[in-house]
């Protein structure tokens, strides 16, 4: 917003008015500086998070080195810490969540963007976004008392009965465990992946569809061959955005995963994630090395979330801005 008033060249300018104008220009400069300062605060904040976590993690890093990430012994009593069970639990529960959430979210996005009439689409979009607004601790409460009993009595016996020969689905049904964590995470990421993918699909130019219809394609063929390929980059971005959320999700997972630092072949067994370990053990950590090891895991989670989110934003922005811009 450039100040378009040319300064001091009108003939009848009184000295007082000139002084006022100078003051105004000074005030504009000051205001600009204030806005810039607050904007830079955000960048500073992200740096501060990284630096303070890294500094607090130094004792654990010095003691265990990079092997911290692939050592599976987590033994607070003997002051020995390896993060592998947590890394494993975080990755497996998130992968499971994406496995369930991606097909469902894509179906929802296609339905909202391509199939539903505008009114139905507005209402359904709103409902799906409400799902994202439910606090995760409420979802966790529902998980403990409604979802895990159902998983224990229905899902796991059925999976064990049909696919029990796979180590993944072997063993007694617990209810509480990796499978439940994956399920509850999928519920949490569906609204994210679905709503971002919907926006991506809506940004696909109408000509893409018309060209395919003109060739005699059915609606599904138009979606499959003209719309989805066009929006592929953005959809991948949406999925990565969902992954970012799943990796760091804490409360709901803590409440249903069982919180046992082990690496089990079966998805029915309890597990542990980095975020859940922080939630449970941080305020009870007794030794400095213990705290430092937990903070090192937080640092790892921070770096991973930075990379994942930056990649996702970049992919989504590439599609939506390049297409939307006239």
């Amino acid at each position, binding site marked *: *917003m450039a100040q378009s008033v040319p300064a001091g060249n009108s003939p009848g300018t009184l000295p007082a008015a000139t002084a006022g104008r100078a003051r105004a220009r000074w*005030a*504009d400069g000051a*205001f*600009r500086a*204030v*806005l*810039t300062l*607050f*904007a*830079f605060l*955000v960048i500073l*904040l992200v740096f501060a*998070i990284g630096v303070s*976590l890294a500094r*607090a993690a130094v004792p654990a890093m010095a003691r265990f080195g990079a092997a911290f990430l692939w050592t599976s012994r987590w033994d607070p009593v003997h002051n020995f810490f390896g993060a592998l069970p947590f890394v494993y639990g975080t990755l497996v529960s998130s992968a499971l969540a994406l496995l369930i959430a991606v097909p469902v*979210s*894509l*179906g929802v996005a296609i*339905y909202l963007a391509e199939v539903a009439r505008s009114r139905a689409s507005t209402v359904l979009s*709103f409902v*799906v*976004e409400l*799902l994202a*607004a*439910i*606090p*995760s*601790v*409420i979802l*966790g*409460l*529902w998980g*403990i008392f409604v979802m895990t009993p159902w998983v224990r009595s229905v899902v796991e016996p059925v999976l064990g009965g049909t696919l029990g020969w796979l180590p993944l689905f072997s063993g007694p049904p617990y209810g509480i465990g990796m499978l439940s964590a994956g399920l509850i995470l999928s519920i949490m990421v569906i*609204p994210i992946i*679905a709503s971002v993918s919907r926006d991506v699909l809506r940004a696909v130019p109408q000509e893409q569809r018309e060209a395919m219809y003109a060739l*005699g*394609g*059915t609606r*599904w*063929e138009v979606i499959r061959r003209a719309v989805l390929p066009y929006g592929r980059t953005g959809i991948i971005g949406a999925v990565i*955005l969902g992954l*970012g959320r799943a*990796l*760091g*999700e*804490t*409360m709901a997972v803590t*409440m249903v995963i069982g919180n046992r630092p082990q690496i089990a072949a079966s998805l029915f067994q309890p597990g542990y994630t980095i975020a859940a370990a*922080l939630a449970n053990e*941080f*305020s009870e950590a007794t030794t400095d090395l213990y705290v430092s090891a937990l903070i090192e895991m*937080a640092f790892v*989670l*921070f770096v991973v*979330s*930075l990379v*994942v*989110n930056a990649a996702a*934003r970049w992919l989504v922005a590439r599609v939506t801005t390049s297409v939307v811009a006239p």
Partner: protein
Amino acid sequence: MSAVLFPDVQRRRVVDRIMTLLCLGAVVVAIIPLASVLGYVTVQGASAVNWAFFTQTPGPAGEPGGGMANALVGTLILIGLASCVGIPVGILGGLFLSEIGGPVGWWVRFTADVLNGVPSIVIGVFVYALVVLPMRRFSALAGGVALGVMMIPLVMRTTEEMVRLVPQSLREASLALGLPWWVTTLRVTLRTATAGVVTGVMLAVARIGGETAPLLFTAFNNQFWSFRLDQPMASLTVQMYNYAIAPYDDWHRQAWAAALVLMTLTLVLNILARTAGRRREATGR
């Protein structure tokens, strides 16, 4: 023509039908958990919520009775503290993005989006190192800072988008009348976008009001009334988490009651904000 390019029209129509139905099925699958959560929280919560819940502090472990009055007030205080951090920084930063921007603005916007994606538990650990360790105790202040940090990118991005919607001619008219740029920005541009900015703030409050993870080792928890900002403070969410994982039936009952209160707050704020946003969009065209 199409029959030549793609033979077997009948089969293609059937595939089209099946895929459309599958997409509809996906919508149903996505909505089932929402319906189930809303249903259980409403039914279980309605039977559990009572006068004592709103007026009493927690009873001794395992004994029935008591309520979450202190946690309810604690959540409101924490939201207030967070707003003191998040709203000014968010709004001024958002004004920077929309009114100054440029290449620096691109980086700030990108960083804000990335900060928005940082797990809330990590923010909690950061504030623990920043506030709790130097103060040597858990405190309401630390909890407020943690929630405030989460609020900044949310408020910033909605403010930017809402202020961008203000027509350029309005700014030009104000500048042409001789108002300095800073007065124009605050009294004309921001003022015009007030409704939208308030909507963004409401959504941000709804989001942080339901946060638990960043409070676990900042505000911690408190079984008693406390209004001191340098002392641990109870919150609805942390109390609910503690009750949900405890082995007492009466605490489970109270956890459901807390869930009902919290969900009502969240949903009301969300619905209000979204319908207001939609109405503005409709009249704007």
